[in-house]
C-alpha cells in the first residue's frame, strides 16, 4: 500500500509542476470515453449510493447527491 501512496504523491507532484501544455489538436486520446473520469455519471452515482450504504466513508470527488435513510 505504501507503493500506491508513493505513486499518488508522484501524480500530485506532476500536477503541481504545471506540465507541458497540451494543444487542442493533441487531445485525440484524452477525449476518448476510456480516458474520462466517471464517463457514465449515472453509473458513478449509483455506485456511490450503494457503497455509502455498505461502508462508513464517502466523498473525495464532487459535492454529493441527496440523502438516504439507508445508512
Amino acid at each position, binding site marked *: *500500500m505504501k507503493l*500506491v*501512496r508513493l*505513486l*499518488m504523491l508522484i*501524480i*500530485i507532484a*506532476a*500536477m503541481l509542476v*504545471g*506540465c*507541458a*501544455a*497540451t*494543444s*487542442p489538436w*493533441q*487531445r*485525440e*486520446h*484524452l477525449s*476518448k*470515453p*476510456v*480516458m*474520462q*473520469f466517471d464517463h*457514465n*455519471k*449515472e*453509473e458513478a*452515482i*449509483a455506485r456511490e449510493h*450503494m*457503497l455509502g450504504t*455498505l*461502508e*462508513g*466513508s*464517502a*466523498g*473525495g*470527488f*464532487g*459535492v*454529493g*447527491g*441527496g*440523502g*438516504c*435513510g*439507508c*445508512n
Partner: protein
Amino acid sequence: MGVTKALGLRAQGLKGSSVLLMIFVYLILPYSAMADEYVSTDINYYKFDGLTVIKPMITLNKDLSLNTSILLRATLDNVEAQTTTVDAVSGATKTTTSTSNTKDEDNRKNLTFGVTHAISLYKIDVGYDYSREKDYTSQTPSIQLSRDLFERNTTLAIGYSHNFDNVLGKYMSKAQDKGSNNYSISLTQFISPITVAQIGYTYSHATGYLGTGNRKVALSGGGESDEYLPDSRKREAIGVRLAQYITPINSAVHLIYRWYRDDWWIKSNTYGIQYYQYIGDNTYMRLEYRYYEQEKAFFYKDSYAGSEQFITSSNLYSQLSSHLYGVKLVHYLRSPNISTEVKYERYRQSTGLDGDIFMFGVKYHF
C-alpha cells in the same frame, strides 16, 4: 352542468398534456451542442444477503441554448429487505440474532433537476435533488462553479450543497431533522496528450439525527435498546485519480486512491484500478478491482451494557475491509447514435456480507 364540468376538466387535461408533449418535443429536438446531449436509461440490480435492490434510472441531458443545458433525472430504488427486529452487535462476523424475521419493502423515489450555464471559460451548475422513501425525505440544493485555465489544460471546480433531511424510522415516535453542509474542490490537469490526473477534496458537516431509527441493539445483559449516535459528524476526504492511455495496444489504465477521516474516528483508504481495452472501433471492455479498508468508530463495540452514551448495531461503523471485482462491456452503434453497456460486479466484505451487482444501460446521443 356536470357534463360541462366534465368536458371542461377533460379540455383542461388535454391542454395540460399538450403543453407537456410540446415541452418534451422541444427538449428532444436537436439544437446546439454545448453538453453531451443524451437520453439514457440504466437498470441496476443488487443482490446481497437478505437484500435485493432494483434501481431503474432515466436521464435527459439537453441543450437549451448555445450556453445553457438542463439535466433531468428520475430514479427509483425498489428495496426488499429481510429484516430482524433485534440485531445483536456484530464483530468480525455477521453474528446476528433475531427475535423475528420480516420482509420490508420500500421504494425510494429520487428526482434531480440541474441547469448548467457557460460563460467564456466559466461554467456554473445549479441543481436540486429530492428523494423520498417511507421513513426519510431529503432535499438537496447544490451549486458548482468551474473554470478552465492554461489553454484549457486545467479545470478548477468548487462546489457546495446542503442536505435538508427528515427522518422517521420505525422505532421513532416523531420525525427528526438532519442537515449537512457539503463543500468540494477539485483540480483536473492534462499532464500530457495521453495522461490526465485529478485531485479532489470534500468536507461535510452533518448535524441533527444521524441514525436511521430502524435499528435496535441487543444488550449484553439481555434486553434491547434504541440506537444512539452522536448528533454531529465532520467528514473529509481527498481523492486522487490518474488516467493513462496506452497507445500501442489501444487501452487505458485508471488509478484511484481516496483517503478519508471523520470525527467519529473512522479512517479509511480506498485503492482502485480500472483497465480499459478497446475491442474493435466500437466496443471496449473494463476490468476493475477496488480495495477498501476502514477503522472503527470510537463508540463501536462488539457488545454494549446499555449504559454507554452511544450504541449501534450497524457494521457501517465497525472495522472492515472490502473487495470489489468488476467487468463491463460498452458497445457503440453509429446510426442511430446509441451506446449500450452491461456490467457485473462482485462485492465481498470482511464482515461476511457479499453480493452481486448487475447493470444494463442504453444511451441515445442526440
